[in-house]
Structure formats: C-alpha cells, structure tokens
C-alpha cells in the first residue's frame, strides 16, 4: 500500500514537474527571446502592483487561454478535433514519469526510489510515448477541414517518423556503453569516474552522439528550426483551426516535449542526478532523519539544473536559426544524422569490444 501511494505521489510529482516547466518555459521563451532581441519582454501582468520581472505572466497566460472563446469551425470532424490536443499533450506528459529524478535514499529504515516508474525498458517507454504524441498532430491536421492544417499534419507525420529513427540511432552508442535500457541503470553507470577526475557522463564518452541527439531532439520538439508542422509564416500549421486552450495545449505540447528531450539529455548524457565528487554518505552527519531527504533534494536539484541547462540551449537555438524547408529537413535526418549516428554506434561497439578483449577499463 505504501509502495502504491509512493508511486502515485511520484507520478503526480513528475506530471507536476512537466506542467510547471511548461508554464515556466512560456515565460522563459518570452523573456529570453526579449533579452536576445534587445526588447523588454512580458512585464505587464501584476498582482497588487507587484510585477517581479513579468513572472505573473505564468498565471496570466493560462487565464487568458482558458477564458477565450473555443471556436470550432464548421466542417471539422468534431470527435477528432476535440481529441487531438489531448492526445498531443497527454502522451509526452506521461513520458516524464519514466525518468529517474534521483537515486535511492534511505529514510525511516526503508529505501525510497526517486524514479516514478521503475521500468527495465524505461527508454523505450519514453520514446513510445513521444511517438504516440505525434498522432495528435496528424489528427488535428486531418480533422481540421483545412488544407493548411492537412499540410501541417503531413509534415509533422513524416518529420516524426524520420527523427524518431534518428533519435533512437543517436542513443544507440550511449546505450551500448550502459548495457541497459533502464534509465536508472544508465545514470548509475555514469556515476563512475574516468581516471578519478572526469565523470564518465555520456556527453564525455559520446560527444558525437550527444550533439546528434540534441539536433534530433530539437526536431522532435517541433520548434524552430524544425517547426515545419507549424511553419507560422508558411502554412500556419496543424493547429490553424484551433483556438483558446485547445490551441494552448498544442503550444504546451512543444514545451513539454522540450522538457522530455531535456530530461533525456540529462539522464543519458549529463549523468542524470549525479553530482560529481559528492560521496553517497555526504549528509550522514545530519543524522538518519535528515540525511536521506537532504540527499534526495540535492539529487533532484542536480537533475533539474541539468534539464534547465539543456532547455536554455534549446531556447537559444530556437531564437537564433531560421527554419528548414521540408525536403532539406528530411535530407538532414535520413542522409546526415542517421548515417553519422550509426557510424558512431559502430565505432562505440568496436571500442567497447577492443577494451573488453584487452581487459582495459579506463574508468572505475
């Protein structure tokens, strides 16, 4: 019973993690782009005259979206039209439950894992959930009774197929090192040190894979330079016939997917919750009641900081680069990223094989 409650609490916290990040990213997007573009950015929302650099826009934006008229044009397929935003937003949100937000801590004489869903195939779960989310985009394009929406949906479908494959391929090298699809094990593997000084994080051992992953991951979030399903100045996109919070849910989807990609990057390439040079029993001096929770806080904070770093990079890229054309996007995926990722995977496999056959282990 305790285990079930604990799992439910963790899943709830993971969903909260995602939703809060999405809301916060809405503000970050406006403010970071403003700073990049010599503007002031959102700063008008105030509570009792208090503005706090526009942070209240996190509250104001959803209020606006929820109170807008939810207009459904004539000629749409109503069921699909209503379902699409939920499908689009729901699945990537569920993917967040599979990440290890921290390791295992001792508290009240028990071990508590900080991973909501402890699955031996956690990575597959994440990729599957993200892949499911794209059905929302296709559905929206199909149901909208508009050629613009349809074009957006089609673009989204082929983009996702291309970049799902690429994404898996870019991860293959790192997974071969970790020897597991279990995300908790991947993090545990990365806690070792190379020659005692450099943490054996995926980004250190798999730099090519990491960069390729970031590119393919950005494509998965459907944000500039890969925002072709949306293409605001070309076809307006799959959500052209949506308004109010349904439209807001599509917007949030992109941000949630960014969080998922950032979580994947943090987990598989940046050592997850691992803090280098922090011994496992660092807080034992605080006593049995405090040591566990303190360690849990540090782990979650470390994970969140890494996610924030990746999100910052994604956001910076989004406001710097122009948009690809459709055929160029597919060329990039199938002809460039995929061969490079496979080559990276083969090289890694070869190196691991050599290391094993020579009995060398550069990391301890």
């Amino acid at each position, binding site marked *: 019973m305790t285990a079930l409650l604990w799992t439910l609490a963790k899943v709830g916290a993971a969903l909260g993690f995602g939703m809060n990040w999405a809301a916060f990213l809405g503000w970050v997007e406006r403010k970071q782009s403003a700073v990049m573009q010599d503007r002031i950015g959102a700063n008008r929302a105030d509570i009792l005259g208090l503005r706090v650099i526009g942070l209240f826009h996190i509250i104001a934006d959803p209020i606006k979206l929820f109170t807008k008229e939810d207009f459904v044009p004539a000629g749409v397929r109503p069921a699909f039209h209503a379902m699409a935003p939920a499908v689009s937003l729901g699945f990537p949100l569920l993917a967040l439950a599979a990440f290890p937000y921290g390791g295992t801590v001792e508290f009240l004489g028990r071990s508590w894992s900080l991973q909501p869903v402890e699955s031996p195939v956690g990575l597959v779960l994440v990729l599957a959930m993200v892949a499911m989310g794209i059905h929302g985009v296709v559905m929206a394009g199909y149901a909208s009774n508009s050629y613009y929406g349809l074009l957006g949906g089609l673009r989204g479908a082929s983009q996702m197929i291309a970049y799902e494959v690429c994404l898996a391929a870019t991860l293959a090298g790192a997974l071969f090192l970790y020897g597991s699809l279990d995300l908790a094990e991947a993090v545990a593997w990365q806690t070792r040190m190379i020659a005692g000084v450099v943490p054996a994080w995926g980004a250190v051992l798999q730099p090519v894979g990491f960069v390729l992953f970031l590119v393919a991951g950005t494509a998965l979030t459907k944000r500039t330079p890969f925002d072709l399903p949306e293409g605001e100045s070309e076809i307006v996109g799959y959500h052209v016939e949506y308004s109010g919070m349904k439209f807001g849910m599509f917007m949030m989807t992109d941000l949630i997917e960014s969080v998922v990609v950032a979580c994947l990057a943090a987990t598989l390439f940046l050592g997850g919750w691992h803090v280098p040079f922090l011994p496992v029993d660092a807080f034992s001096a605080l006593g049995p009641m405090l040591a566990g929770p303190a360690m849990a806080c540090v782990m979650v904070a470390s994970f969140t900081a890494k996610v924030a770093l990746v999100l910052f990079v994604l956001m910076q890229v989004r406001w*710097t680069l122009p948009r690809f054309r*459709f055929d*160029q996007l597919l060329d990039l995926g199938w002809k460039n990223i995929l061969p490079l990722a496979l080559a990276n995977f083969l090289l890694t496999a070869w190196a691991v094989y050599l290391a094993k056959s020579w009995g060398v282990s550069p990391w301890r």
Partner: protein
Amino acid sequence: MTEERLKDGRTAVLLNMGPSHPAMHGVIRLILELEGERVKSTEVEIGYLHRAFEKHAEAEPWNNVVPWTDRLNYVSPLINNVGYCLAVEKLLGVTVPERGQYLRVIASELSRVTDHLTCVAANAMELGAFTVFLYLIKSREVLYQLVDDLCGARVTVSYARVGGVKADLPAGFEAKCRSAFALVRESVRDADRLLTKNRIFMDRVEGTGIISREDAAAYGITGPFLRSTGTPYDVRRAHPYLVYDKLDFEVPVGSRGDNFDRYLVRLAELEASMRIVEQCFERMPDGPASVELSELVKGAVMSDLGKAGRISEIAGKHVLTCPSLEGSCDHGHAGARGGGPSVVLPAKEEVYGSIEGLMNQFEGVMWTWGLKVPAGDAYVPVEGANGELGFHVFSDGGNRPYRVRCRPPCLYIMAALPKLINGGTVADIIATFGSVNMIAGELDR
C-alpha cells in the same frame, strides 16, 4: 476539402493563400495548384490596396499630390516625393538649387536604407529568423526618428515639394545621422553573421526563385531584382538625376538571379546608400534649399526695362505674373514668363511677418490659383527602392494635373511571380515573395 475540377477538365488541389495569410501582408492573394507540397501553377490576384491614386491626383492642385505619393511605397516614401516633384519640375522647367538637390539625395538614400532593412528583415522573419528581424527593425527605427527630425513625420513625410524641399536639415542632423549609420552598420553586420553563412538560410534562399537575365528584362523588372541577375541597370547611373553623377557609388550586381543574390545585393546597397549620404554631407554646398522667391518685378515693368536695355536690373529677378489676376491685362504680360511666386511657398517667417509673404502664400494655396504648370507632359524615372519608379505627368496648363501616371517597380515583378514560384514548394513561396519586396501601396496605387 476535396479536389476541384478545373475548367480544362483536370482535377487539382487548389490552395487559396491570402489575402489573410501571414506572408501575404493582407494585401495579395495567390491561388495555388498543388501536388503534395509542389506548386504546379499559380494565379496572382492583386488590387486589395487600390486607392485610385492616379485618379485622385487629377482632383488636387499640383503640390497636394505630394502627400498621396507618400502612400505609394510607404516603406520608402521620400523617394516617391522626389520622383513626383522632379517630374513636375521638368514640366515647369525649374531646377532646384544644388543644396536642395543634395538634400533630396540624402532623403532618397535614407529611404532606400529603411526600405532594404525592412525587406531583408521581413524576409528573415518569414524564414523563421525572428531575432534578425528585430535587430534590423531596431536600426530602422533610428532612421525613422531621423526622418521624423527632417520632416516631422515617420511615414507620411511629404518632404519634397515642387521647387524644393520642405525645409533644410535641422540642427545636429549630420551628427545624428552618422551615429545612426554606425548602429545600422552594426546591425547589418549582425544580420550578415547570422544569415549569410548560415547553412539553413543559404539552403532556403540559394537556387530558389530564379529568374534569368533575359526573362527579367522581358518582364520589365528593374532595381535590386534585376541587378541580382547580373544586369547593372540603375536609374541613378543610366539616367542620372539630381546630383547622382557627382557622387561615387557602386552598383552591386549578382549573377544567378536567385533569392540569395537578391539578399546580397540589398545588403551591398545598404552600405552604398549610406556612403552616398556621407558623401553628400561632405560635398553639400551652402545656399538655398528651394527655388528662391527672388525679388518680383511686374511683367509690364520688366518688359519696359528690357526694352530700355537695362538688363542688369532685371537679371535674376522673377516676373510677377499670374494669368488670372487683374494685372494680366497689363501690356507686355504675354511675352513675359518665368518662375512666378507660386512655385514654392514663402517661408513661414515671411508669411507672418510681411504683407508680400502673406500674399504669396495665399496665391500659392488659393483654390484654382496656386502653381500653374505649362501644358505638356514629362516623364521622370528615379531609382526607387524596388526599381525604376517613374512619374509621367500631363498638364493642360491648369493648376492641377491632367493626369499622373505612376510606374510602380513591383508591379512588373509581381507579373513574373508565377514564373518564380511554379515548380517550387510552398515553403519557397515565402522566401521568393519576401525577396520581391512587394509593397501593395505602389503595386495597387
């Protein structure tokens, strides 16, 4: 959302793009025949911003047409003013003093800079590079403030007048202009760094929207669009007006006639235009900016003096003549013609300070009086930001135009638009249409 049957019996997917579409500026409509994302054929529908400029001009006194020209290419209104005034002046036989000509060059080139900044910025934004857009628009804003200093308005400028300009440069203009140019150069450099060697941007614009030299000439395309194909035709060079023959400037040309070349030509022209303005500051002589209201002598008196051989007393003086005034019956009037009091309005100090000034002002603005232009017609082309901007003015000798015909540069590019976008993808339309720099104000007039 089904395939539609065309007149020739084929079925096709027809996509209506615009006028309510983010890239169509709300003023143009394309009907595309699609095959997947490929564009098979295009129909361009214009006229959403038709304001009957040419007809309207026939109802207004000569000088009152100047504000309507502001609304032609509203991104570079100063050039339109200058073009129209040059055409009227050609008909009048009036030449603006040299300082006025330099001022008009400065104004024109400022407008060219704002226009090219807007075009490059909007093009970048439509391709997704929103940050570049804001960098360039920020520097355009500084130039707009400069234009505001010059003539009291940012867009509806009406700076040039028949016979001169509204006013000389305000105090401190040169220093402000130089610091504004420093900012423009900085942001253009930023844009250059963010775009010119950016693989994504190059892939989007290189090899798209291609037009050949011959086709461009056949369609009557001029300006940066023509120069991108390698034809170095620039009205400022080919038919120098104002003081352009005294200034050093490059006419940048491209070679392939694609969107990338047009982008590069515009960037190079930005720098060339700024250098022209800087040269103007160095070479500009002192003196009057507009045709002077010289001492006025009655026609009868002037002809008497002339008969008596006292030429030195009437040299440089203007004849006070107005056919509809009582004085027109004076003897000798018919033989005396010249730049009368009504070509330019007197300075406001004169209007409020002296009876002659007040009378001149009234004569200049009164209904059915004012500026009268000899019968005939004149065509003057100027290098607008998009190409050759021509004004063909016709006069029947009255105080308002008989007809004003405007040759808008982007009409001819729009005629070639289907040729540019057919065979490309929907996404290419955005890049190509952006590089056309279609300004509906002058397209639809």
